[in-house]
């Protein structure tokens, strides 16, 4: 069944942080039990800020101490809580790598680490970019890794995660991203990719904010008579290998798009699936190259590295058509 997506990205910017903050409040009102921890990046004006003011007894602000935040979250989980933990993304995967690996993943506790400002969306230069997190997370056992395509999907992931026993990473962007899905009634299962547009000439696979870039690219390619299948690969682990293999069979050409280093992220995962299946196909990874990003406005950076719709369409056309 085709999923309805929006192509009018300019008017519908939403924040995943806002959406899941609202969802958390609903969940408390419904009687669900969980704890919330945060670092010093939850503004009082946001919905998560409101959540913390409304339910202070279930919230812990750990300050600027990401390793401790992850450790404390694991301890809270060991005490019997499901824990949502919002961390300023740039300092989550590397500063707290050992705590993610050992306290969360090895102990296998139900902590949901919500890393904000993924990729280069924070715009603060390479110290404030998150370019190697997916590569790292992929190698850590027990972690479920979800990268919601838009704000509404993030809220769904947060709710869905209440049913999950183990640890989860939820990777979200800065908080002003276009809605990909027009309605919120599409089928969504963690671990199951969504084909959001059919096409026969190639497949574009995106994750998180790169899903809408892929859609934009598909639109531009369409004008040139090239039809692209577009996949929302919202879960990086467990990885939906079947969706990749079907795409390869149907289109013979796969292009991955991600706001992450091209080394070891979504593109790496897709390449591994295709190579291990022994299938010959056209393939290209589009992402952040192996260098520290240029410094600038995020939208400029995306254009610079050819990650916007136009850049993707150009790369694809030049390489394959």
């Amino acid at each position, binding site marked *: 069944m085709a999923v309805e997506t929006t192509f009018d990205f300019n008017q519908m910017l939403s924040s995943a942080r806002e959406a899941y903050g609202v969802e958390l409040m609903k969940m408390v009102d419904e009687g669900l039990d969980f*704890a919330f921890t945060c670092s010093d990046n939850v503004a009082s004006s946001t919905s998560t800020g409101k959540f913390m003011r409304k339910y202070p*007894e*279930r919230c*812990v602000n*750990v*300050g600027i*101490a990401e*390793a*401790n935040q*992850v*450790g*404390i*979250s*694991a*301890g*809270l*989980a*060991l*005490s*019997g*809580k499901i824990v949502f933990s919002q961390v300023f993304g740039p300092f989550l995967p590397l500063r707290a790598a*050992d*705590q993610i690996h*050992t*306290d969360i993943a*090895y*102990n*296998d506790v139900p902590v949901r680490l919500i890393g904000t400002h993924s990729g280069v969306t924070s715009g603060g230069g390479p110290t404030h970019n998150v370019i190697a997190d997916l590569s790292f997370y992929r190698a850590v056992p027990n972690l479920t890794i979800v990268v919601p395509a838009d704000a509404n999907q993030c809220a769904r992931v947060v709710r869905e995660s209440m049913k999950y026993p183990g640890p989860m990473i939820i990777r979200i962007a800065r908080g002003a991203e276009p809605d990909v899905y027009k309605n919120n009634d599409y089928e969504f299962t963690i671990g199951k990719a969504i084909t959001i547009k059919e096409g026969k000439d190639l497949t574009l696979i995106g994750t998180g904010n790169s899903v809408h870039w892929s859609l934009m690219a598909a639109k531009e390619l369409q004008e040139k008579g090239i039809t692209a299948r577009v996949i929302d690969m919202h879960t990086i682990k467990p990885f939906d290998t079947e969706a990749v293999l079907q795409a390869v069979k149907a289109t013979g050409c796969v292009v991955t798009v991600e706001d992450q280093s091209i080394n070891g992220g979504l593109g790496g995962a897709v390449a591994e699936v295709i190579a291990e299946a022994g299938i010959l196909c056209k393939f290209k990874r589009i992402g952040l190259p192996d260098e520290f990003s240029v410094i600038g406005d995020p939208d400029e950076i995306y254009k610079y590295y050819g990650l916007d719709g136009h850049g993707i369409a150009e790369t694809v056309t030049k390489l394959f058509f």
Partner: protein
Amino acid sequence: MMYNYNLNVDMELVQQLECKAVEIRKMLCSFIYEIGMGHLGGELSVTDMAVALYYKYMTYDPKNPNWEKRDRLILSKGHCGETLYTIFSDLGMYTMEYMIEHFETLKTAKFGMHPNRKYVEGIEASTGSLGHGLSLATGLALGARMSKAPWRTFCIIGDGEIQEGSNWEAFMAAGHYKLGNLVAIVDKNGLQMSGSTKDTIDVDPLGDKIKAFGWDVIEIQGNDMYEVCNALQSLLPADPITRRRPICIISNTTKGQGVDFMENNCAWHGGGIAKAQLDEALVSIENCRKVR
């Protein structure tokens, strides 16, 4: 809050626990001989404290290690897990034969040099990487407060481990949140893997530092069972709601305590023990038995 640290400790109890510590040390050495690996230096230094906790001062039921109301103990110095395994064995949770059979054997492993909570009932958290335990314990204490649960969280930390910066993040947070239901115990044997902590990175003045982070500090001779009991008996009830300074017991110990040729010798940080050494160790431990 000031602690009444000079209490009337029942000397009969002290003596019973001392005898138990002698037994545990002997069992521990035999266990390490059988499995061929361990961290005897630190395992022997922390034995008295661990015995006092599990046999007297922790709310704990070895028949029901997942009992919701139990006190939690996080062994931050995870490499000393065999001390806990030995105590679990003595408490009837596992037989020694079972532990030996299931120790780091590829197909049947449950017990590892660093404990895994998913394999070993009684282990509250999988540890081994140093500097993690106090954050976990802080989270547990906060969780008890959220649930208004009256159990207490203990966390045993090595003094070399104190060099890991993450401990200080946790000391700061627990002090800030005034977790009166949290007790950190620093097993301060003064040695780390390759030498003294003083010569490596000096952790002192440890008590003053921890006090400055908002904790109450009790400093004791941690291989003197009377002092251990006195400190643990002085703890106020683990009321989850009342906010008061968390407590740190600085337990001054001797690495390799009880085995004369291991004492204060950092070469006994890790490794196995030969049969002749075991026999000598068992005699040495017996000779340490106090006559009161």
